[in-house]
């Protein structure tokens, strides 16, 4: 009797996959197409970094390309091309962006000081609309406002004789950086404030009550309670933007570029596009892309290190 049942158990084991293994295999089968997609669109391009080390000619298989080592990296840094001007523009615009990082904070604090809920909700909704339109639409809006022909602002100022010649901010070379800064603020402040508003709402109300009892006025409360409550969030966002210092974003600068202001507005991302796709300088452009990725990762690790040192917490 016992031998019979032992045989049965033995035969189940030899019958093949147990239930658990079958489930594991099925699960893996379900997820593998998506893992393939992830590999193809995110990891496979990394093999393209090899283009930077050969004189890439399209159509020729990779192994038959002529290996040139660091030639393109040397070309980048040797000058005689626009690389340094492009880096100057990129860093200038990034630093300006960091310099105005407090503005969404101020906006958020000002918004929470409004006592009429309908008004503050209205302002929050309307102010964040520009964040959700494409940069092409932003360009369309600023074109309608500032075109020297019949832009709204120029029309009004000329008609009221406040100026005699039309303003031409969109083709200005001298003020290009500041104009892009203002445009960026117009687009980003409303939505950028939302995170800070969430942080402010999360501050313990008791602190405010206690401060009021102690006789603190509005600005003292803001300075001693609200701002310290926001500083952690602000710091994290600041460090993250440091790691993105070489990536201003292709779209904004591409749409606002024109022959007049391109000396100031050609940033790294647009330069990589122009050299790589428009001019088909594949190896040169790939080398610049590698440079950008490596620096960005290094900056991210550095920002993470800073965060650990100063705040005893990592970002990633």
């Amino acid at each position: 009797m016992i031998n019979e049942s032992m045989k049965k158990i033995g035969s189940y084991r030899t019958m093949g996959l147990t239930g658990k293994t079958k489930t594991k295999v099925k699960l893996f089968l379900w997820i593998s197409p998506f893992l393939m997609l992830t590999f193809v669109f995110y990891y496979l391009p990394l093999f393209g970094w090899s283009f930077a080390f050969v004189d890439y000619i399209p159509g020729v298989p990779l192994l038959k390309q002529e290996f040139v080592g660091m030639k393109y990296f040397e070309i980048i840094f040797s000058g005689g091309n626009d690389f340094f001007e492009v880096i100057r523009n990129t860093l200038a615009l990034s630093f300006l962006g960091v310099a105005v990082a407090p503005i969404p904070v101020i906006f958020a604090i000002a918004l929470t000081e409004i006592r009429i809920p309908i008004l503050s909700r209205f302002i929050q909704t309307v102010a964040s609309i520009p964040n959700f339109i494409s940069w092409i639409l932003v360009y369309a809006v600023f074109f309608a406002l500032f075109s020297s022909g019949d832009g709204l602002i120029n029309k009004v100022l000329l008609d009221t004789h406040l100026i005699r010649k039309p303003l031409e901010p969109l083709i200005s070379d001298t003020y290009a950086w500041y104009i892009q800064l203002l445009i960026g603020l117009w687009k980003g402040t409303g939505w950028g404030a939302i995170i800070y508003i969430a942080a402010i709402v999360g501050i313990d109300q008791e602190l405010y009550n206690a401060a009021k009892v102690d006789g603190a006025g509005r600005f003292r409360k803001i300075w001693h309670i609200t701002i310290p409550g926001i500083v952690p969030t602000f710091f994290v966002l600041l460090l993250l933007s440091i790691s993105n210092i070489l990536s201003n974003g292709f779209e904004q600068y591409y749409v606002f570029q024109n022959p007049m202001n391109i000396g100031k507005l050609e940033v790294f991302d647009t330069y990589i596009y122009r050299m790589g796709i428009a001019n088909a300088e594949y190896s040169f452009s790939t080398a610049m892309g590698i440079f950008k990725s490596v620096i960005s990762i290094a900056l991210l690790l550095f920002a993470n290190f800073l965060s650990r040192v100063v705040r005893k917490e990592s970002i990633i």
Partner: protein
Amino acid sequence: MEKIKNALFQIVNTGMLLLFSLSCIYPFYYIIINSMSNPVEIANGVYFFPKDITWAAYQQLSHIPNLYHSVFVSVARTIVGTVLTVLSCAFVGYLVTKKLMPCRKWIYRFIIFTMFFNSGLIPWYMVMKELHLKNNFLLYVLPTMISAFFIILIKTYIESLPTSLEESAEVDGADTFTIFAKIIFPLSMPIVACIAVFTAVNQWNSWADNLYLVSDSRLDTLQLLLYRNLQSNMASVLQSSSNSNAAASLSSSVQVTATSIKHAMTVITVLPILVVYPLMQKYFVKGIMLGAVKG
């Protein structure tokens, strides 16, 4: 004295914020009213209400080559892209929560890691080319199917659902996909809605992939067509053709300027956003809150 200082602060503060808000909404209003006003009046200045309403500019839009195509392309990529992205991110987010998934930790890291590096434009371009995705509608909707950020959001949400639901379904013999489709996905609607609105707006606004990879103008999105319109003198070509049409047609003696055509095109491109965002705002805010907490 306190009351006066308080009132003054409120007035100044509210005033400045309202002024900023006005700057965010008035330009759109200006463009809308100018797109439907007679250009003669526009020269005098249309600032508050449309004057001498005419739809001529919109009628001229139909003469822009590829306009209907580009609207179709933009709508198609928004719908198809959103559906594909939402479904695939939700399913992957669910699969990653299954304890029995082999190498679960490594799979999760494999996906998350994609948020931290960027292979660069040219390598990505080459991959798309090799996959025959140049001049192919799929290039608009395939790459966005896997978004680590959305997958994290969904995974976190699903993990907060009670496990008894899944367990009882498994006992009843339901397989993985059925459980996902009939139980998990419907329950995840709050977070799915957030992801859907973000994806939809992104798809409607996308044009860079169009620029990089498409030379066939039948695949152009509305955004890129608008940009080319704004830049070129295409509009003045239309203007002269519209004048000759006007001469031939019975009723219209209305001229259409290049600018009012630009305005009309801007309106049709921006209107979906202006309508959708205020209605859906709570989904956007919720999405970013969850993302910020998790991130």
